């Protein structure tokens, strides 16, 4: 049991070291190109449009429980919100963030406030809203928010369950673009069918790197790629050792 904990600790330390190492290398060398993900390509266009024609961008941060794995996707959503907020606040209609969890709502308001301060504009509490506090009431609140506001694009990055279909459907009724991803497996399955540009699994966590949120985001992506192959190798070797009864 304790050996398992040690292995886990070493894994985290290795990941930590890899991220720092890659970040250090990226200071001097140009980062290798990342594979193209259509959703992020579309998002870049949507951000451009939001700045040009003043259409509103809606970023939905989900309703993931903090103090769980779900909080991580919330932080990814927040870093994307921050990045987009700083780039689109120059338009007369800055992005609006909706969330279905109390602390996420507070953090989204903080992020909006920071973006507004960075751009020297007045922040508005309405830019970061809690639209509901249970999964379906959150979906219902976001649904009516989309119906009431003039939204150009809806970016759904956070923890969503099957209720996300109601949000994407409302966006489609308003002929808005919906793109995004979630950590929740059923949410991913539904989003794959219902969203125009779905992000699958791990892709969602790469949002910061694809939007240029900072070197550490890119570094963590390369660290993930390295560990991915280490993991693949370990599983293969472990399976063979198990098969031959060595392990």
């Amino acid at each position, binding site marked *: 049991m304790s050996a398992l*904990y040690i*292995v*886990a600790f070493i*894994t*985290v330390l290795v990941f930590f070291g890899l991220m720092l190492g890659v970040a250090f290398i990226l200071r001097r060398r140009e980062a*290798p*190109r*990342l*594979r193209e993900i259509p959703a992020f390509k579309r998002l870049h266009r949507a951000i451009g449009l939001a700045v040009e024609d003043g259409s509103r961008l809606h970023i939905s941060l989900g309703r993931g429980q903090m*103090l*769980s*794995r*779900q*909080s*991580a996707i919330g*932080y990814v959503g927040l870093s994307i919100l921050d990045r987009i907020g700083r780039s689109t606040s120059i338009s007369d209609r800055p992005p609006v963030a909706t969330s279905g969890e109390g*602390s996420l709502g*507070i*953090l989204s*308001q*903080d992020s909006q*406030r920071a973006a507004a301060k960075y751009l020297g504009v007045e922040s508005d*509490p309405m830019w970061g809203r809690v*639209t*509901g*506090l*249970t999964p379906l*009431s959150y979906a*219902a*609140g976001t649904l*009516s928010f989309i119906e009431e506001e003039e939204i150009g694009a809806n970016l759904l990055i956070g923890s969503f369950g*099957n209720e996300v279909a109601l949000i994407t459907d*409302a966006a489609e009724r308003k002929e808005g673009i919906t793109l995004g991803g979630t950590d929740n*497996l*059923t949410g*991913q*399955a*539904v989003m*794959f*069918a219902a969203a125009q540009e779905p992000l*699958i699994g791990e*892709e969602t966590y790469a949002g910061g*790197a694809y939007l240029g949120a900072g070197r550490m985001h890119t570094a963590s*992506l390369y660290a*993930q*790629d390295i560990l*991915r192959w280490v*993991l*693949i190798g*370990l*599983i*293969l070797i*472990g*399976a*063979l*050792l*198990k*098969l031959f*009864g060595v*392990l």
Partner: protein
Amino acid sequence: MGWADWIGTLLGFVLTLLVFSYLVADNQLFRITLHLFIGVSAGFAASVVIHNVILARMLEPIYAGERSEQILALVPIILAGLMFTKISPRYAFIGNLPMAYIVGVSAAAAIGGAVLGTLIPQTLASMNMFDVQASQAFDADLGLRLINGIIILVGTLSTLAYFQFSSVSKSSEKSQLQTWIDGLGQIGQVFVAITFGFLFAGVFSAALTALIGRAVFAVDFIRSLAGLFF
């Protein structure tokens, strides 16, 4: 059924119809119903939290606990007080401390959960499929189990490879390694699609059961209503 239940059932029936009106088109009555529901669910969540956490776990130790418990209980009370300043944009900065605390703890909890809850157990599970000794003890058909194990292994690894972000080929044209990785990713895509298809069908089954539940409720209500007059 008492009059309160009658009114309740009628209310439930009307609200059901108003929600279903969204199938025809989005309308004001539907939105009013949604907002009512959002308010009610928020009210319930708040009252449960007040009863279960604020009173029972935050304030109770102050009255009933020992000295050490009382001191420890003061910390979350202070942090909670600071957090409430987030309500006012002017004094929101005061609440940054508890938010930083929550973010730090939740980040650690996320890492701990991901490594101990998913990464290591799922990796071990992928290996254990080939644990011949254990399999022989439990499974008569070892051959079939191994074939399934190989399919799961290929599916797991190819799905994992599908998420590769950085390109291994330096130039614009693909290197042979990159072609291999892409090929593996293609296989992974198929497994991802099968998983999503299965989950999608499951989500639909759940939604359909909810629809049937509403239909049963409506049919029962109409039957009982008809029973009153005829």
